């Protein structure tokens, strides 16, 4: 019996539409993630959230984010029994800082737009960053489409277990600054690297003097631009000098790249290297001295929620890897870690 031919001609159109729809949804998911990064810095808000790790008791926290004279500040207050005093975060990016989605990230994650949901009484859109291999966790976001705030976030392992999750139970926005305003991290609280990043990017846009919100941008002269460029190049050279390491990776797991070799400071002769795939990061700490002659096959590992730690010896050095990635990824990164030898 011949198939109904009138439908055969429609089939390519249906397939094309399906492909277009899938691509459109992926683009929408990426757009919403990028929006989340930008929107959060212009909001003043407070909320209560629950933080849950696998095999642990849930913990509740209160968070307040304010903008005072163009400077972001954040306060986090644990609410459970035996909790301490409120703590002021060093970076106001405690909720969500996600890299702008790059083609490299899309090679290892597929970004899918999900259905609408509701968290803390607010409608939010589900977005899934689905790993294309077993080297990273599945990440599930629920983003408030109106404010761009991350209301719920989950990390899920290959066994479909939620290893870590946080969700707001209460959320209130007090004020939203205009999109044109410039907002700076609180200088007293910012980490050295974070402040440098923001200061450099801000200086490129406006006069180095005028960095406060609500002020009009000062005109940027050619001399100012040159001075900024020279300063940036000098800082980059110094950073390359500080970041020199005899260790390198050959290879790194797909999607990962080394972004830092100093980690801000070297402590007691240790090295601190950071690698990331855009959504998950791993710190590698290298220390010499105690393990020379010890068996290099012995490996110790532990886990806490999404955080995994692996310790093993290589070439007489104790290597400790810490990251929000599966244990197998730490093992692969360790296997690819090599030490340059001077001939």
């Amino acid at each position, binding site marked *: 019996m011949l198939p109904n031919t009138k439908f055969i001609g429609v089939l390519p159109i249906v397939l094309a539409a399906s492909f277009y729809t899938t691509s459109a949804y992926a683009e929408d998911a990426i757009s919403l993630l990028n929006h989340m990064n930008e929107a959060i810095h212009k909001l003043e808000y407070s909320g209560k959230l629950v*933080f849950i*790790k696998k*095999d*642990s*008791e849930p*913990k509740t*926290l209160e968070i307040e984010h304010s903008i005072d004279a163009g400077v972001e500040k*954040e306060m*986090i207050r*644990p609410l*459970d029994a*035996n909790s*301490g*005093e*409120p*703590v*002021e*975060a*060093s*970076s106001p*990016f*405690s909720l*969500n800082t*996600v890299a702008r989605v790059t083609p490299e990230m899309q090679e290892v994650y597929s970004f899918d737009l999900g259905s609408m949901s509701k968290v803390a009484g607010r409608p939010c859109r589900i977005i899934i960053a689905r790993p294309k291999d077993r080297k990273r966790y599945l990440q599930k976001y629920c983003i408030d489409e109106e404010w761009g705030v991350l209301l719920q*976030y989950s990390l899920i392992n290959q066994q479909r277990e939620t290893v870590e999750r*946080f969700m707001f139970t209460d959320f209130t926005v007090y004020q939203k600054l205009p999109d044109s305003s410039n907002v700076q991290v609180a200088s*007293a*609280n910012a*980490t050295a*690297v*974070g402040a440098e990043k923001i200061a450099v990017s801000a200086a490129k846009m406006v006069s180095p003097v005028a960095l406060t919100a609500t002020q009009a941008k000062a005109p940027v002269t050619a001399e100012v631009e040159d001075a900024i460029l020279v300063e940036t190049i000098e800082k980059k050279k110094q950073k390359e000098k500080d970041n020199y390491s005899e260790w390198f990776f050959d290879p790194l797991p797909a999607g990962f790249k080394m*972004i*830092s070799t100093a*980690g*801000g400071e070297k402590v007691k002769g240790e090295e601190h290297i*950071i690698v*990331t795939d*855009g959504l*998950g*990061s791993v*710190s590698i*700490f290298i*220390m010499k001295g105690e393990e020379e002659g*010890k*068996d290099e*096959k*012995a*490996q*110790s590992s*532990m*886990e*806490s*929620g999404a*955080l995994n730690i692996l*310790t093993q010896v290589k070439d007489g050095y104790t290597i*400790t890897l*810490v*990251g*929000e990635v599966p*244990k197998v990824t730490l093992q692969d990164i360790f296997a690819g870690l090599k030490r340059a030898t001077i001939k």
Partner: protein
Amino acid sequence: MTNTTKTEMLSAFLDNESSEFELRRLLDEIQKDEELLHKTAQYSLIGEVMRNDQSKVTVKNDFLAGIHTRLEDEPVYGEVQVKDTIPKVKTSPAWLRPAAGFALAASIAAVAVVNLDSSMKPSGSDAAQLAQRVVQPAQNMIVAKVAASQPLFKANAAIRSRVQRYVNSHLKYASSTTTSIMPTIRAVSYATKY
């Protein structure tokens, strides 16, 4: 038995993958090999490094940047001699050997289990099963090994301190140099006493 085999047995034990036979063999080897004894205690105690901080979080300014300052103010554990609580027995009558071996194995397991709280545990292991399997009388355990375990308490505290510093550094620097979700929330939840 080669060093590679011993290390594999130790790794299997720590990952809760040892059979009863392998466990007995491991305990036998620990009697003879001081280095293996050292390694067993060292690796077991790594699992306690992320226990909850007992002090209140009172830092009001720059919480994450203050972590390193607080850690620098802590005493250097390597210079502190922890009081030995394991009894020394010079002569070992036959009836005492299993009990002494039990005490040594129990001390290793007890430290590993008690200090493995809900926040941090060896990957893939059940702490209760681990305790039950390790706490068994060891046959003909050489009691002199007890004295050799004293320096381990110094080394274990140093390891604990170092790994905790690594986690704090990761939460601080990885979050500022890369992109990450909720680094401060993680740091606060690890530091707060619950």
